[in-house]
């Protein structure tokens, strides 16, 4: 807050506010001078300078110290309306007032500087912590398949007819699986960096959402082998203007996420529908599973980059859902996560977009 005022207020404004404050407080004291003596006025002005010292830059604060000293001398120390100071005691007090106010200003400023440095260091430490988390999960996710590939290939290269044909096939299969996993992670990283650099723009074109949803389910045949998948569509759905490629990625990440984190035999329900507004229509997509759902306090955090649920099983970099959010936001849409009363999780995507109903007209 202190930092906020000093940073947000321009230099000139700071001087104006400081001068205004000193004059204002002095005026009040002047009207009250029948009740309070000039020594109390010195304390009131001193408090004012101290408060200013907490809020503003060093030079406005020093100005306020000097200005308040002069005003006190001119208006309050007898004889009034002259800079001349009558008694030696008042002279000493005036000097002491000026010195203490200035020292106070400088000290407060220094403390603020130290606090600022401490805050910056804390931020840096947090950033380092985030990077460590990133590197740990990334190096794990990339190194596991790489070690598999290197190890399996070494075995095959150094083979002196000791490996059985069966094991050879096994090794080759492992190489193939590891490469696919590596490819998936690299794809995620590339998507993430496309998002970060801000070069992702959705290229919207008319989409048949039946085609969109089924194309992704077909892509994921292998992943979904042990799950039941059901896709339903509202009647008379129009065509929507969406980026087919980006939306495929979004659905792919959400459905494979559901398949990875629910037990075998679970059901995944996909429903595509429409929400009609006054001027614009919204494409609505729900993806539900009947797994255990998400911890209630983590439903917002899961979309954060590199965020992984506590005790989640190995694998995954925590990039999938943040890519989902990034791509949906590239459509000016919204993705939310909630838990179902029956258990299980529901992801909802809402994208306001253009629609075309020509697919519902009788053709020719």
């Amino acid at each position: 807050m202190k930092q906020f005022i000093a940073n947000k207020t321009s230099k000139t404004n700071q001087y104006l506010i400081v001068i205004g404050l000193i004059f204002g407080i002095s005026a009040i004291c002047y009207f009250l001078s029948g009740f309070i003596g000039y020594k109390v006025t010195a304390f009131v002005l001193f408090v004012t300078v101290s408060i200013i010292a907490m809020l503003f830059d060093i030079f406005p604060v020093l100005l306020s110290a000097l200005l308040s000293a002069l005003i006190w001398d001119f208006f309050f120390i007898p004889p009034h309306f002259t800079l001349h100071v009558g008694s030696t005691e008042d002279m000493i007090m005036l000097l002491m007032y000026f010195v203490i106010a200035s020292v106070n200003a400088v000290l407060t400023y220094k403390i603020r500087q130290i606090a600022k440095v401490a805050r910056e260091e804390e931020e840096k430490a947090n950033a380092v912590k985030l990077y460590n988390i990133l590197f740990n999960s990334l190096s794990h996710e990339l190194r596991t398949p790489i070690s598999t590939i290197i190890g399996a290939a070494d075995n095959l290269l150094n083979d002196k007819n000791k490996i059985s044909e069966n094991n050879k096939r096994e090794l080759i299969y492992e190489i193939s699986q590891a490469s696919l996993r590596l490819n998936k992670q690299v794809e995620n990283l590339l998507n993430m960096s496309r998002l970060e650099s801000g070069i992702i723009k959705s290229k919207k074109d008319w989409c048949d959402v039946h085609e969109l949803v089924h194309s992704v389910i077909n892509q994921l045949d292998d992943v979904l082998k042990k799950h039941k998948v059901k896709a339903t569509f509202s009647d008379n759905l129009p065509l929507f203007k969406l980026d087919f490629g980006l939306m495929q990625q979004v659905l792919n990440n959400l459905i494979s996420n559901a398949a990875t984190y629910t037990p075998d035999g679970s059901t995944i329900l996909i429903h595509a529908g429409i929400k009609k507004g006054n001027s614009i229509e919204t494409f609505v997509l729900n993806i539900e599973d009947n797994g255990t759902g998400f911890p209630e306090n983590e439903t917002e955090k899961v979309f954060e980059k590199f965020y992984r649920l506590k005790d989640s099983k190995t694998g995954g970099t925590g990039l999938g859902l943040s890519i989902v959010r990034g791509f949906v936001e590239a459509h000016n849409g919204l993705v939310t996560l909630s838990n179902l009363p029956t258990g299980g999780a529901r992801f909802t995507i809402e994208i306001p977009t253009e629609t075309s109903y020509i697919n519902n007209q009788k053709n020719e």
Partner: protein
Amino acid sequence: MNSGEILVIDDEVQIRKLLEITLQSNDFVVKEAGTGKEGLQMAANHSPDLIILDLGLPDESGHSILKKLREWYTKSIIILSVQSSEEDIVTALDNGANDYLIKPFRTGELLARIRSSLRHNSSEEDNSIIDCDDLQLDLIARTVKKNNEIIKLTGTEYTLLSLFAKNEGKVLTHQYLLKQVWGPVHITESQYLRVYIAQLRKKIENDPNRPTHLITESGVGYRFVGKN
């Protein structure tokens, strides 16, 4: 037996090695070039049956090599490209590439594309009957049969399907399809294309949600697969 000569233009030694082994073990004769310039020379000297061209070459962009090749080379060219460059792919297809493959690609996919492209080289003569598994198109009688039963298609549906069937195995871009079927004026009105693809799938596919003939090439276009 030799199934044809293929020229690979790619600067990555590993990819060339991989393609060489894959293609040689499938009875193709393989020639290799590491730069665009070398590729152009070898294409002129050997006149291969098919060229595999990488878009990211060190000396000259693959797009410009493609244009130069297309000034005289009429046989198939398959493009190799990296992921997430739909625009690159569409440009290359518009500039005369027959097909594309995205790195990393699967060997099975590569061979299927090569075979389908080579079929196109040889079958330039007009067949009046096109046979695709369970589908039969009679271009003279303008009829389509599925499992020997005539299916009813509207005029536009037929035009679209026959265009696909004549280009069996080849990716047709959205723009190309719109231009050919609806005319140059409607080139941006892709909503028609979506609707007719959905209708055609309902009529010719066993399961329209798992199409085996009309395959979506995300962000690029559609591919008609006749023989699996």
